[in-house]
């Protein structure tokens, strides 16, 4: 019913009366019920909320009212973003019984814009992972090939859009968690500039890196959703919501290709596809130049310190005392309150989350702070400066989104260091704070994502260039 439609098409057809919002919702509910058991993208369904929202949209259309930007558009939300009255697990056993008591700012905005929310989507536990396999709800499968992972940590958000269960989804990106799964599922995924979208109501992983962003089927949809969710928010002091507009003239722009991104470790198939796309751009008259970003190669190591350190502090709040998982509560059997915490956190967190909490605790502990955390923050300055310098010379930087093709389920699950390499090309944008989008560029075979990195708060121009690339390829 909506497989090949854009947000604009759906709204046009709703207005023309080709189908009603409630018919659209019922169609998608039936599709999810039939097809999702094989994919496992949803962890909670909010069909009552969806039907209620659809009814309102149909009433607006019947009354001939002007429709807001997302009216009647079906979506689903990564299960680390709070929706009032609906479960929010972050993919973790420790939040199995938690029901959110308020809306995240992005959810409030989606509701105001008339979007229809079908449910909450699977993820790697607390958004830590690159394959969707580290979820207490079991792995999500890639709809393009059920033997392969959809990427992570926004595994459900990418899979649900790729499977046609919803028109768009919201994910969160701390080190690539929107762009890498978008790349693996042949979709468009945006990590906004740090401070563009409010994090209020997002379960924090690493507060200096996290951003919420859209996963969609095309660039126009991503732009519409981004416009709806971005903007200053008094509830998140880090959200300044700058929105710079600018024109993009294909004949005048300069694109930088960092030579450090085409060295060993990149899959030949990925390299071939990206190079073919770059050749196409050159043929279209785009000025493409080689640049060097020598500190970018340290971004992943930097991230391996900053993320666990911030996560260990953020996840300290999960003590299973005020909310969480009632089955893990062991009040009467333990000698002390501390023992109650220790048991709930042992049983409630999965191995990857425990690994990162332990590493972060170690890196912040007395005697190690300067050697690890402080040093990583200094290297971060060098990476930021390097991007600022590069953007004086080029308008955009393009790279592969991920060094590999979507890998098979189980292939990397037990080797954390290999798993982390998936984030090699996506972490620099988080460390620096700049915006980046992944767009699909493989003509056949498994999906390959092209990453376009833009300067701080240049999302408007990023969408314009991404749209041009989408048409060229």
């Amino acid at each position, binding site marked *: 019913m909506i497989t090949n439609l854009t947000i604009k098409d759906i709204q046009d057809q709703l207005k023309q009366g080709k189908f009603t919002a409630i018919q659209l919702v019922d169609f998608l509910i039936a599709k999810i019920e039939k097809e999702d058991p094989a994919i496992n993208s949803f962890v909670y369904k909010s069909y009552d909320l969806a039907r209620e929202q659809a009814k309102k949209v149909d009433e607006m259309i019947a009354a001939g009212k002007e429709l807001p930007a997302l009216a009647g558009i079906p979506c689903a939300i990564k299960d680390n973003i709070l929706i009032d*009255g609906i479960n929010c697990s972050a993919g973790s056993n420790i939040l199995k019984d938690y029901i959110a008591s308020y809306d995240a700012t992005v959810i409030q905005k989606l509701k105001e814009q008339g979007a229809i929310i079908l449910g909450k989507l699977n993820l790697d536990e607390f958004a830590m992972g690159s394959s969707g396999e580290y979820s207490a709800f079991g792995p999500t499968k890639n709809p393009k090939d059920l033997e392969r992972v959809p990427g992570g940590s926004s595994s459900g958000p990418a899979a649900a859009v790729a499977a046609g269960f919803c028109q768009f989804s919201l994910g969160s990106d701390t080190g690539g968690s929107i762009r890498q799964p978008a790349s693996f599922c042949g979709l468009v995924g945006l990590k906004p500039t740090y401070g563009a979208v409010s994090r209020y109501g997002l379960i924090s992983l690493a507060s200096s890196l996290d951003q919420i962003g859209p996963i969609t089927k095309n660039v126009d949809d991503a732009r519409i959703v981004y416009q709806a969710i971005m903007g200053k928010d008094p509830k998140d*002091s880090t959200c300044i919501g700058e929105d710079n507009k600018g024109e993009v003239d294909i004949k005048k722009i300069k694109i930088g290709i960092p030579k450090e991104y085409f060295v060993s470790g990149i899959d030949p198939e990925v390299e071939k596809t990206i190079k073919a796309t770059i050749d196409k751009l050159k043929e279209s008259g785009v000025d493409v130049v080689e640049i060097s970003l020598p500190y970018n190669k340290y971004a992943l190591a930097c991230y391996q310190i900053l993320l666990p350190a911030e996560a260990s502090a953020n996840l300290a709040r999960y003590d299973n005392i005020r909310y969480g998982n009632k089955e893990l509560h062991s009040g009467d059997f333990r000698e002390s309150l501390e023992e109650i915490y220790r048991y709930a956190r*042992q049983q409630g*967190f999965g*191995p990857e989350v425990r690994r990162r*909490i332990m590493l972060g605790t170690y890196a912040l502990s007395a005697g190690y702070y300067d050697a*690890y955390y402080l040093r990583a923050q200094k290297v971060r300055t060098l990476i930021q400066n390097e991007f600022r310098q590069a953007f004086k010379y080029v308008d955009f930087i393009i790279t592969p989104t991920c060094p590999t093709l979507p890998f098979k389920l189980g292939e990397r699950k037990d080797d954390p260091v290999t798993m982390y390499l998936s984030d090699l090309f996506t972490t620099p944008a988080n460390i620096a704070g700049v915006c980046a989008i992944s767009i699909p560029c493989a003509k056949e075979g498994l999906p390959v994502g092209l990453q376009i990195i833009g300067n701080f708060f240049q999302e408007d121009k990023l969408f314009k260039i991404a749209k041009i690339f989408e048409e060229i390829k």
Partner: protein
Amino acid sequence: MISQEQIKHIAKLARIALNADEEKQLSNDLGKILDYIQQLQQVDVSNVNPSFHAIDQENILREDIAIESNKQEAIISQFPESQAGFNKVKSIFENNDN
């Protein structure tokens, strides 16, 4: 490499119980990750200031105004253990009279 003794100490700081197998596995995994991170030692960071955030930030202050909330029920119902609307937890002060 992180010794199993160190792992025990970190687990205590992080309030996570671990069994012997988990301790061993973590000592091995953390060692591997720390080996990878060692590359940061090659970078010359003398005279470089740390960046704790991606963008320049300033404090945002606002009036401290009380607002109505009718969420008590929703919040209390989530306590793993409650009594008369209170969250019940194990006592944390020792009784020195005994």
